[in-house]
């Protein structure tokens, strides 16, 4: 008897469920790129590309790609996406959006206002990349929808390859949240711009953030690579080129194999951060050669160390000017010098920190020819 009742319950239960969370793939309109802007009235505008692959009825098997550009406006991001949902056939689904673009205006405000609705949706791809653009996201996306139809995940691959070359910090929708809510650490996002000459979207550097918003300044790829060395988070490849002599036009390219950083924090009048960076490099391009001679190596090491130290000085001045603690010195203080942190903590704690970088280059390898 009990068995029969149980059986009945199990049989009927699936029929009684009121909200069935089935989402059929064929009914959904999957987004592959979204951008967020803020217009003059303070309304959010979401721009998305919905990609359709159509098998043409006449000749089966022939697949044609078409991009559909959709925009929606609203007081919040959710309202804007609801507006899009109403305007497209099928269900608007951001689950496959692998890249998010923040318009300049949005980035300069509190970017968490945009990200909040994404975090609350369990279907959003948490490994999506985020980028900032120099203009409006709408413009970039419109451009991409017209020109990059056949290129698949163009923007995602673009950002990803920059990460591999240690040009920008590896940041996803998931990891950005820890930076946003860490009081002692800031971050940088890829900075997109439209190249007028080539008519192509490019990464022109790394946008510096302070707290929740874009500072308006960005680092060039060289600078951000150097900063990544100081953060000890470089990828496998990090090739830099320096001009050794202004007169002779001799330059050297080298790949940084490994980095080691020593950080010393001291409180005097200000907090002094002495950073000693050791780079083990491999020379990959140096036409004058003679790398078999110790003097040559010594010369290169000395010269490169000097150039990089100067560059690092300039870099940290730039960071200080923007109050952007990408290096995470605040986090360092919280962890190891809580007493110092107590004195300086606050919105603009970076003002109290003076960074004194020093770079030492060791040439370890010179390729397969001597």
């Amino acid at each position, binding site marked *: 008897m009990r068995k029969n009742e149980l059986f009945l319950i199990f049989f009927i239960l*699936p029929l009684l469920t009121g909200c*069935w969370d089935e989402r059929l*793939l*064929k009914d*959904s309109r999957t987004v592959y790129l979204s951008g967020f802007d803020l217009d003059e009235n303070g309304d959010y505008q979401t721009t998305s590309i919905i990609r359709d*692959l159509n098998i043409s009825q006449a000749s089966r098997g022939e*697949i044609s790609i078409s991009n559909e550009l959709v925009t929606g406006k609203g007081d919040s991001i959710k309202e804007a996406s609801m507006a899009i949902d109403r305007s497209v056939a099928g269900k608007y689904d951001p689950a*496959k959006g*692998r890249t998010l673009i923040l318009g300049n205006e949005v980035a300069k405000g509190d970017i968490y206002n945009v990200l909040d609705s994404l975090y609350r949706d369990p279907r959003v791809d948490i490994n999506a990349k985020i980028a900032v653009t120099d203009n409006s996201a709408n413009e970039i996306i419109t451009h991409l929808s017209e020109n990059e139809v056949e290129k*698949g995940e163009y923007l995602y691959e673009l950002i990803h390859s920059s990460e591999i070359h240690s040009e920008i910090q590896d940041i996803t929708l998931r990891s950005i949240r820890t930076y946003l809510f860490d009081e002692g650490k800031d971050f940088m996002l890829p900075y997109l711009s439209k190249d007028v000459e080539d008519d192509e979207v490019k990464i022109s550097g790394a946008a510096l953030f302070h707290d929740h918003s874009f500072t308006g300044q960005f680092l060039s790829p060289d600078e951000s690579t150097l900063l990544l060395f100081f953060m000890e988070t470089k990828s496998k490849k990090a090739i830099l080129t320096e001009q050794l002599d202004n007169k002779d036009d001799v330059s050297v390219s080298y790949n940084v194999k490994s980095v080691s950083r020593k950080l010393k924090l001291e409180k005097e009048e200000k907090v002094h951060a002495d950073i000693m960076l050791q780079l083990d490099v491999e020379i990959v391009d140096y036409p004058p050669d003679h790398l078999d001679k110790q003097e040559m190596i010594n010369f290169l090491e000395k010269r490169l160390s000097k150039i990089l130290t100067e560059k690092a000085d300039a870099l940290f001045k730039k960071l200080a000017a923007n109050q952007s603690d990408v290096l995470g010195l605040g986090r360092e203080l919280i962890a190891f010098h809580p007493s110092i942190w107590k004195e300086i903590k606050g919105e603009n704690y970076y003002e109290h920190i003076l960074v004194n970088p020093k770079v030492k280059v060791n040439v370890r390898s010179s390729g397969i020819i001597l």
Partner: protein
Amino acid sequence: MRLKRNKSKKSLINQANLSIENIKSQLNHTSDLKDREIHSNNQIYIILYINSLVDQEKLESKIIKPLIKMENNNILNELYSQEISTAKSNKIAINGLLDGYCLLIKKGRNSEGFLLKAAASTDREVSEPTTEKTILGAKVGFVESLDKNIYLLRKTTKSPGFTVKKYTLGSSTTTDVSLIYLDHLVDPEIIKKVEQRIKSITLDSIRSAGDIQDCIEDYSFTPFPQLLLTERPDRASANLKDGRVALIIDGSPTVIIVPATFMTFFQTPDDYITRWWLGSFFRFIRLFGYIIALILPALYIAFVSFHYEVIPLELVYSLQSSLSYVPFRPIIELMIMQLSLELLREASIRLPPSIATTFGIVGGLVVGTAMVEAGIVSYGGLIIVALTSVSSFVQPNIEMSSSIRVLGFPLMLLAATFGFFGIIIGVLFVLIHLSRLTSFGLPYFSPFVPLNLEDFKDTIIRVPSWMMYKHSKNSPHFKQEKRSRKWKQDESEEPY
């Protein structure tokens, strides 16, 4: 009226005296029952036999001829028949007649008769089994004759421990069943259980191995077979050597092996003929195929109706473009495909092999692609169903591979209602069920549940034979010496 007649018949059978008239009336004066009087040496003999069961040639040359020429009256010495026994009651005589013996009675002395074997034999020649193919295994399969099957087993299993026990089953028509085991390897508990279960069979008649299987298996209401049916003497013999028991049914080319565990169905003779790492690899492939065949359709349904965010981006678009032409839900789409495939499979069994190939091409390829073109199913669904059926064919045992096909449907339904969650619940149910099953008291899902690492040597992987010196827990009485590769040690000690 009829009841009364039966009763009177019974009393006649049990009558001690042998009477030709009685025997005739009990066999309903059937017209193929012949009798013949022979005068020899001043005696009159009567030979009684069933015409259709007896080899005329044998009867004439081995029984009648010597009988006529006989000079003294010692029948046992003079006749050439293979088997001679005395029949003292009507019952024994009738059973003998039905087995193809002929009854020889001296006229006037009704108390005693002789049963002489002269049975006709129309046995098929031993040939390669068709359902369990191997690459390198023996090209020998069981046939329909009980004696020949025992012969085939004995030839591959030479041991004084080889024991045959014969049972006659069925109350209205009888069938001979032989129980075979190696006495020194088998667990006496299992023999006791098997005997007990066989004796308790009270079926009217035994049609095939399936009838016996139904009666003696531990659980009837499970898709998993607990007895191994095989057509291969080498497979049966290997199982005997593992301490299992074989049941041979007269008239059936399938032999039942008990007890069988889940992993028994994944072993084939080929595993032991090829080198061990190859055997292990194939066994792994089989297990993998089993899992694929079980959950792939369900996974596909869950993917396209609940969790398409886990599909890689490029695949999403191509799946979507093909799916958007299909008017049905994924579950209906796959059901249509699966059912039409089952139809094809069932139909191709009945066809002669020459047509079956053509049929396979027309049915599989043409119908499949046409269905996609017509928008009834999608490319994705077609691929999934094709992969599933290929995977299910990897399983060497038909019974086991059918079990996956049956289990696949409820799993698909669960996936269509609850997505991944449903699949997990379904698979969990299957695993719990498997762990609870037993085969003749032995855990069915061993060596996984209960976990027995020692037994992994011959389940998921097959280690080299010399490493299997400890026998599986199913037969704890036997241990092989760990000396088969002692030559290696000896050789390295040899001075050069």
